[in-house]
C-alpha cells in the first residue's frame, strides 16, 4: 500500500476537500436529472453508486472524524442507501498508513526513545490501519505485540471535521439539524473519547477483566508501561478477522459457536455490566482456535440503570399486546412527544410496533438462526422505507434518547455480524425482564 503522507491538514483545506465532495455529489445529481429529462434511462442506483464512491474517497482521505462517521454510517445501514453502505464498509480496512519517521517521532515524544529502544523488532509498515491510528507489529523477549499509534493532531481536527461534515451528512440523510443535534453531540463525545488512548487502555483492562469468565471469549493483554496518550500496546493476536472467518469454508457448528460467544458477550455487557463495546465492526473481532478474540475498546458506551430499564422494556413480550403500556413506554423514551397530534402518534406507534416486532424477534422466539432468518433483510427494508417516508421526515422534534444511538448501533452491528456468520444462537431474556414478565402475566394487568 502506498503510504499516505497527506492528511489534509489545515481547516481550510479539509473544508475545501469536503465541499469538493459535496459539489461533486451535486454535479452527479445534475447529471442524473439531465439524463432523466433526456430519458436516457438514468437509474437511481447508478447515481447512488457514483456519489457513494465520491463521498467515500473524500472521507477516507481526511481520516479522523469523517472516516469514523463513514464507518458508523456503514453500520447503521438502515440510514443509508445500500450503495453508500457498501462503499463505506470498505472504510474498515482501507485507510492508508502514515510514514515511519512520524511513528518514530511519536515514540520519541511519548517514551523518549525510538521503537527499537523498547522492542527488539518493530515493523516499519503498519500491519493494518484504523481510522485514527495504525497498528504496528513488534517483538520483545520473543513475545509479539500489537502497537497502535495515533495519527498526529487527530483529536485536534476532529471537532472541526464534524462541524463541516454535519450539513453534508444531514443532506445525504435528509434530516433536520435541530432534530438530530443530540445525535451529533453523542457521536462527537464518543469520537473525542476514542482519541484518548489512556482512557481506552483503562476500559480495555476493566472490560476484559469483567468479561473474562465468558466461555470462548478472549481478550489480548494490555500493557500500560508500553502505552501512553498516543500509543497503545497489547498482545498480538494471530487470528482471522470475523468476516473472513464467516466467509471461509468453516463448519456450521464452528460458526454457531462463535456467534453464540458474540451474543453472550454483548448480552453480558449490555444487561449486566451496562458498559459495552460500541464498535461492532468485523475488524474488531478475530477468530483463533475456535475462540472469539475481542479487540479495540476505543468506543465504549455506559448506560444508566434507568435508561436500561426504559430501553429494554420493549423486550417484554407483553408490551406490544398492551397499547396503553406501549404508549407509556414510548413516552418514557421520548418517542412520543407531548405536542404530537393523533396522526403523528399513530404514525410513531405503527413505526414503533414494527421495529419492536423486528428487533425483539430473536428474544421472543428464544433463538435466532441468522443464516435462515429474513430478519436482516426486513430490517434493511424497514430502514429504506423509513428513509423514503416523507411524512416521517417531516415529524417535528427530537425523538428518542441520544443514549439509544449506541445501543442500537451495538445491536444492529451484532445482528449484522451474526448474519454474516449465518449463526444460530440461543437467546434468553435478561433475568430481570423474565421476572417482570411473569409478574405481569400473573397480575393480568393491561
Amino acid at each position, binding site marked *: 500500500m502506498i503510504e499516505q*503522507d*497527506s492528511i489534509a491538514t489545515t481547516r481550510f483545506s479539509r473544508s475545501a476537500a469536503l465541499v469538493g465532495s459535496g459539489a461533486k455529489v451535486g454535479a452527479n445529481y445534475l447529471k442524473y436529472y439531465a439524463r432523466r429529462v433526456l430519458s436516457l434511462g438514468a437509474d437511481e442506483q447508478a447515481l447512488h453508486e457514483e456519489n457513494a464512491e465520491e463521498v467515500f474517497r473524500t472521507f477516507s482521505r481526511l481520516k479522523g472524524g469523517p472516516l469514523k462517521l463513514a464507518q458508523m454510517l456503514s453500520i447503521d445501514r438502515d440510514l443509508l442507501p445500500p450503495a453508500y453502505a457498501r462503499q463505506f464498509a470498505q472504510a474498515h480496512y482501507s485507510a492508508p498508513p502514515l510514514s*515511519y519517521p512520524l511513528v518514530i*517521532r511519536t515514540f520519541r515524544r511519548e517514551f523518549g526513545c525510538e521503537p527499537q529502544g523498547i522492542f527488539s523488532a518493530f515493523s516499519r509498515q503498519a500491519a493494518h490501519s484504523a481510522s485514527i491510528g495504525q497498528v504496528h507489529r513488534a517483538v520483545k523477549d520473543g513475545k509479539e505485540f500489537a502497537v497502535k499509534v495515533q495519527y498526529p493532531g487527530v483529536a485536534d481536527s476532529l471537532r472541526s471535521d464534524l462541524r463541516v461534515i454535519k450539513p453534508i451528512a444531514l443532506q445525504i440523510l435528509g434530516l433536520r439539524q435541530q432534530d438530530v443535534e443530540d445525535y451529533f453531540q453523542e457521536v462527537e463525545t464518543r469520537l473525542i473519547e476514542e482519541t484518548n488512548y489512556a482512557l481506552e487502555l483503562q476500559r480495555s483492562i476493566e472490560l476484559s477483566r469483567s468479561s473474562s469468565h465468558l466461555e470462548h471469549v478472549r481478550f489480548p493483554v494490555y500493557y500500560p508501561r508500553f502505552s501512553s496518550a498516543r500509543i497503545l500496546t497489547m498482545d498480538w493476536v494471530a487470528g482471522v478477522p470475523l468476516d473472513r472467518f464467516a466467509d471461509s469454508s468453516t463448519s456450521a457448528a464452528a460458526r454457531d459457536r462463535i456467534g453464540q460467544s458474540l451474543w453472550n458477550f454483548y448480552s453480558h455487557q449490555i444487561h449486566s455490566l451496562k458498559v459495552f463495546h460500541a464498535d461492532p465492526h468485523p475488524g474488531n473481532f478475530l477468530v483463533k482456535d475456535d475462540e472469539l478474540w475481542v479487540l479495540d475498546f476505543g468506543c465504549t458506551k455506559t448506560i444508566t440503570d434507568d435508561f436500561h430499564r426504559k430501553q429494554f422494556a420493549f423486550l417484554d413480550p407483553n408490551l406490544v399486546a398492551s397499547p396503553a403500556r406501549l404508549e407509556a413506554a414510548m413516552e418514557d423514551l421520548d418517542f412520543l412527544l407531548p405536542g404530537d397530534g393523533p396522526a403523528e402518534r399513530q404514525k410513531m406507534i405503527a413505526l414503533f410496533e414494527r421495529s419492536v416486532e423486528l428487533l425483539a424477534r430473536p428474544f421472543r422466539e428464544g433463538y435466532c438462526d441468522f443464516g435462515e432468518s429474513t430478519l436482516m433483510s426486513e430490517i434493511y427494508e424497514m430502514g429504506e422505507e423509513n428513509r423514503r417516508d416523507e411524512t416521517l421526515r417531516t415529524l417535528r422534534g427530537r425523538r428518542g434518547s441520544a443514549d439509544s444511538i449506541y445501543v442500537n448501533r451495538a445491536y444492529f452491528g451484532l445482528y449484522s455480524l451474526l448474519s454474516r456468520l449465518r449463526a444460530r444462537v440461543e437467546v434468553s431474556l435478561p433475568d430481570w425482564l423474565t421476572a417482570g414478565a411473569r409478574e405481569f402475566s400473573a397480575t393480568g394487568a393491561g
Partner: protein
Amino acid sequence: MEPIERITASFTEHLREHGRYPESVYLFCQGLGIEEKAFFSEFGSFEAVEAGLWEDLVSRVILAVESGAEWTSFSARQRLLTFHFAFLEEALSWRSLMLSRFGATGPFARPAWMRGFEARFKAFASGIVAKGVESGEIADRGRLTPLYPEALYFHLRSVIDFYLKDDSKRFERTDAFVEKSAAVAFDVIRTQALDSAVDLARFLVPRPHACKG
C-alpha cells in the same frame, strides 16, 4: 571555555533576551572581558556569529539523524521526513528566538545570518536527492536536478513558517503539515509535474523578437 564559545554563548543569550544585536562589538567585548581584537580574529561581524549559531543548529540535527541506527536503510523520503521531525524537536528549544528572527523575515528572504544555515541544509539535501535519484524515487532531470536542494530548502522554510504560526497542542499540526507537504514535494520531483511546469514557463517567456514590440 574557548573565546569563540564564550562569544557565541554570550551573543546568543543577548539575542534571546533582547531580540537584537548588541549595540557594538566594542561594548559586547567589554561585557565579556575580552579585547575587540579577540572577537575579530574569530568573526567579522555579529551577523557572522549569528550565522554560525543557525548553522550549528542544523548541523546538530543532521548529525543526529545521520547517526541514527536505521538511517542507512531509509528511503530518500523517509530521510527527509526524519530530518524534519528531528529539526522540529530541536526547534522546541529555540522557538522564541526563531519567532523573533525567522518570524520577522518572509520565507523567501535570505539575510546574511541565514546563509550558513541554508548552505548546510542544501549540502545535506543534495545527499538526499542523490540517494533518491539512485533509488528511482526522484527523476534525474540533468541540469535541473541541482535545483532540487533549492526546492527542498524552500520547503524547509515553509515548514518553519508553519511551525512558528502553529498554536496547536504539541504543534501536532506542524507534524501533519510536514507529512503532507513532503508528499507534495516528492510528488512534484518524482512525476512529470515539474517538466510540465518548466515547459509552460518556457512557452510563456516572451521570445526575443516578440519583445521588440
